[in-house]
């Protein structure tokens, strides 16, 4: 390492810092011990640095700067927590939307209790609008399998006489978030009977098992009953007595 290189390194490297780990700096420092001229130069250089550093570190700082900095920080903090009119409106709108969404979600996840009468009315309305079967099969087991795959009641037990009628097929409908099985039958007289099946747990007020409730809704005869697991509503345009005979 020549003198010029040593001076270059000695000028920018600082003792007492990580610069000391620099091998080139260590070599330059070794050169000082071996070269009296370089040593003298280095002492002058260090004195120059010390004087510059001491003078510059005494450079005056405005007396009010500290107070201004702290005051500004307080203002910044209070501004950060002071909502503007737009922020308030935005928060209110977001709150209303969130509550609305939660209400709808709640309705979806926890539908309002469905009574047996409500379910019967839904069944009649559905029958009036027509419920063409989606899965066409006369085979009850095939229907059960299809309904099971669609998470609909599939383990229902129908009265024997009704089961003897010609099966038309089945489908599912949703009533207040509950999946309902719809099974169609064709009677020998040409009329249809449609049975709606829902889980008994989905109803808040179900008819006690074994009790048959008969009534007429407009031109339709309606029969309701339940077993331990499901609630059934049969809807048909046959006279009420004829429907009762099937059950």
């Amino acid at each position, binding site marked *: 390492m020549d003198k010029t290189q040593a001076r270059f390194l000695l000028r920018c490297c600082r003792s007492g810092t990580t610069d000391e780990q620099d091998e080139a700096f260590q070599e330059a420092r070794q050169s000082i011990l071996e070269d009296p001229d370089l040593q003298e130069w280095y002492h002058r250089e260090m004195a120059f640095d010390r004087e510059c550093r001491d003078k510059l570190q005494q450079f005056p700082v405005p007396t009010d700067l500290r107070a201004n900095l*702290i005051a500004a920080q307080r203002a910044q903090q209070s501004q950060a927590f002071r909502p503007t009119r737009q922020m308030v409106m935005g928060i209110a709108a977001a709150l209303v939307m969130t509550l609305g969404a939660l209400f709808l979600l709640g309705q979806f996840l926890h539908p309002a209790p469905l009574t047996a009468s409500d379910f019967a009315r839904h069944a009649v309305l559905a029958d009036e609008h027509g419920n063409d079967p989606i899965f066409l099969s006369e085979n009850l087991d095939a229907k059960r399998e299809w309904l099971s795959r669609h998470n609909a009641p599939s383990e229902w037990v129908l009265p024997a006489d009704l089961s003897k009628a010609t099966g038309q097929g089945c489908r599912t409908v949703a009533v207040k978030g509950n999946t309902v099985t719809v099974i169609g039958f064709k009677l020998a007289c040409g009329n249809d009977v449609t049975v709606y099946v829902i889980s008994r747990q989905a109803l808040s007020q179900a008819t006690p098992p074994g009790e048959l409730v008969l009534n007429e809704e407009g031109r339709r005869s309606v029969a309701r009953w339940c077993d331990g697991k499901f609630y059934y509503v049969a809807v048909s345009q046959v006279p009420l007595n004829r429907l009762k005979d099937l059950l």
Partner: protein
Amino acid sequence: MQFQDLVDSYYEALYRFAYSLARNSEDAADLTQQTFAVWGEKGHQIRDPKKVKSWLFTTLYREFLSTRRHSQRMVYDEFLPERLPNEPDESFVGRLDSEALMAKLAELDEIHRTPLSLYYLEDYSYKEISDILEVPIGTVMSRLNRAKSQLRDSIQTHLKNPDLLSFPNLDSNAQNG
């Protein structure tokens, strides 16, 4: 660290560094203010307390770069032949007060006075300066060498011709390059 403790620990050093960059007290105070404002927003992201100081200096320097007029002429002389350092005259710096010396420092090109400010004001090593300014180590070393030479020349010229001291009317020059 509480904000007041942070201010007490660093505001003077940051202001001096800001002054060496901006070359006037108003801009220096603004830069210092802005640095602490950025701390207020992002300071919580710093997990290692040892990095707070260099973070503050780096932030101040970035703030300076972002607010500086882009029309300012930059002197990129990394590829100029290396100047040989002058022989220092013993104790001639002692004939200047701190403001006059800061004025001489402020006369240097920005790329030279910035690392030299960190070197003198905060006793940073060249490696730390390299980290703060985000420039290569070799570049910092070259700039420090040139900066010292320029500062010494400037001081010697001033002592021989005190009337030539132009500081603090450097702001317009700085803006116009």
